[in-house]
């Protein structure tokens, strides 16, 4: 296993940046998720690590060895493709054995290694079938087996669950996570699904428009998004973002209600050089505490029962809709006025001009 280091790696197609200069160090045994909307450069980054895409500039180091200009076959990296890329003219067994044959391994050892990895993934019974005769999940397992069998320095996975049915995706997600823990293999995993990223990643690299927006643990990117993009992108629904004015004692929301802020935030906001006190207040739905006598007012716009809880859609005075989490048995007539407070520990502030988070 190995660590991967990207130094100023960039990719240009003509004059257009697919990936702007990017620095990233992936530790040995770490599960890194590259997350972002489609076209953000995450797959290009992965392909540059694999060598399938040449870098325009920068350096890629694998365990300190410069592999920037090595052919993919010389990097000792395994790649799992979104559509599996199993060879349809070979049986599952031959597909799995294929990387070992490249190294010219003896037949007995190939057989033994294929047997081991097939047992690990519980696919012994389908080894003689052609990929076309397998279910999506089994195709995925064969693709994973083909990557695992070589015991490579690192695994790269490009949306490996994207082609699976929703219910199956969760099973495979758990299987991949379990495999990762068992193998302790450095893994770079690309997805556009933030739930998948939160569930699997040790750290998440959030990309947008060819630029890394934030690198952090799932908890960090969820609770302390670095900018408005991350705040919106992470979470389902994303962070509530409301334009507000900084005043003595708190921030004033549209419609006149004043949300009190802690002393710590008051100092931070005063020192942050905001233009005429304009700020964006951000808070997660679970920071909303609906109660009589709360400091803030809103009207109930809609409520969705999610089983374990109710998601309230609240309309502020300026027509802005925010989301708040309420107890599963909370009853609120549509259109009725409610009052709520915000958990002071869960309030975050952003500079509307730079879109960056204001440090507390």
């Amino acid at each position: 296993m190995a660590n991967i280091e990207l130094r100023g790696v960039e990719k240009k197609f003509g004059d257009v940046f697919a990936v702007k200069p990017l620095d990233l160090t992936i530790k040995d045994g770490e599960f890194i998720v590259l997350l972002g909307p489609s076209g953000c450069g995450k797959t290009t980054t992965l392909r540059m690590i694999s060598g399938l895409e040449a870098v325009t500039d920068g350096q890629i180091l694998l365990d300190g060895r410069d592999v920037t200009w090595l052919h993919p076959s010389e990097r000792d990296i395994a790649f799992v493709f979104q559509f599996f890329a199993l060879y349809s003219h070979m049986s599952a067994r031959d597909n799995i054995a294929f990387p070992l044959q490249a190294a010219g391994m003896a037949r007995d050892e190939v057989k033994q290694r294929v047997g081991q990895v097939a047992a690990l993934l519980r696919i012994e019974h389908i080894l003689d079938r052609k990929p076309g005769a397998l279910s999506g999940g089994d195709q995925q397992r064969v693709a994973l087996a083909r990557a695992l069998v070589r015991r490579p320095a690192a695994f790269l996975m490009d949306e490996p669950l994207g082609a699976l049915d929703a219910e199956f995706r969760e099973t495979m997600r758990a299987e991949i996570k379990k495999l990762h823990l068992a193998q302790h293999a450095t893994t770079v995993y690309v997805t556009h699904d933030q739930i998948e990223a939160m569930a699997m990643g040790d750290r998440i690299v959030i990309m947008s428009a060819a630029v890394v927006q934030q690198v952090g643990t799932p908890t960090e990117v969820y609770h302390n998004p670095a900018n408005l993009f991350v705040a919106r992108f992470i979470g389902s629904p994303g962070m509530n973002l409301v334009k507000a004015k900084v005043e003595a004692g708190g921030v004033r929301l549209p419609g006149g209600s004043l949300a009190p802020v802690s002393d710590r935030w008051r100092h931070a906001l005063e020192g942050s050089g905001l233009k005429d006190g304009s700020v964006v207040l951000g808070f997660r739905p679970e920071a909303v505490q609906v109660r009589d006598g709360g400091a803030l007012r809103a009207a109930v716009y809609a409520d969705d029962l999610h089983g374990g809880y109710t998601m309230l859609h609240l309309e502020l005075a300026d027509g802005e809709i925010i989301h708040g989490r309420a107890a599963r048995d909370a009853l609120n007539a549509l259109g009725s006025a409610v009052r709520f407070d915000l958990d002071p520990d869960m309030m975050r502030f952003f500079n509307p001009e730079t879109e960056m988070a204001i440090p507390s």
Partner: protein
Amino acid sequence: MANAANAPRQKVVISTRVDKVSTGARLTSSFRATIAVIVALIMLIPVAWMAMTAFKTRPDAVAVPPKVFFEPSFEGFVSLLTSRRQLTNDEIAVYQQRTDLGWADQIALIRGQAITGPSAFPRQLLNSLIISGVSTVFSVGFGVLSAYAFSRFPVPGKDDLLFFILSQRMLPPVVVTIPIFLMYRQVGLHDTHIGMVLLYTAFNLSFSVWLLKGFIDEIPREYEEAAMVDGYTRLQAFRKIVLPQATTGIAATTVFSLIFSWNEYAFALMLTSDAARTAPPSIPLVLGTGGIEWAAIAAGSLAFLIPVVIITFLLRRHLLRGVTFGAIRKG
């Protein structure tokens, strides 16, 4: 309906159980099959007629009205494969007494002829086999390499080059036969196997590049990329992954190239005379003494059909199978 409980509630068109298919659907499918058989029969009539003529005697072949039922004879094949000499009446009498004549000699004797040796036709058939076989190997081989390059690499001026290659097909080949004839005579390629292989390869290559490019475009790049990440060079990935995946396209291109060079008439007539003469221009020239040998011509055409039929039959599985992408799921 004898058993209403087993009858399908909706119209079932395809089922492994005959009793589950609705009567209407069954009738429709047998009606379609009947039409298909009739069309196939109509298309086979000329071939069947040719096969029949090949086994007729000369009087039967030219009989009016045409004979559908006749006594089969190898006269046509004997005239095709041998050269003969007309015997005088005295000689015929002598020959009829001889007991050492083979069956072919006896057939010739019916028409008062004696066999003097084999004809040029077997060698012309062999020429056809060599020239079309080698040119097919070349045009498919070079075709698959350049199609792969056009499909996968950023070749400068790719579209123009492809159009340029295609434009070769826009010209009726007959137009250039005279210039090519003159050039071939100058450089000593006239009536040579190499000259004909070169010509047919050049003419087939544009077609095979385009056809194969379409097939290779359909093979996802991920296949080779997966092989390359797994430790193979690009050439190894091409050989182990791309070629097997392109089998269908290669089979189709092979058959089309083979049929073109096998059937080609105009160039062969102009550019070959003896050593490299192929079968197509020679078959209509099987003239006997006193009239066209229809049976021999039909026999020659029949013999000429067989190699192409065999190749097509051998490759039929690939031709019919269509392109399957077992494990690539399009999201």
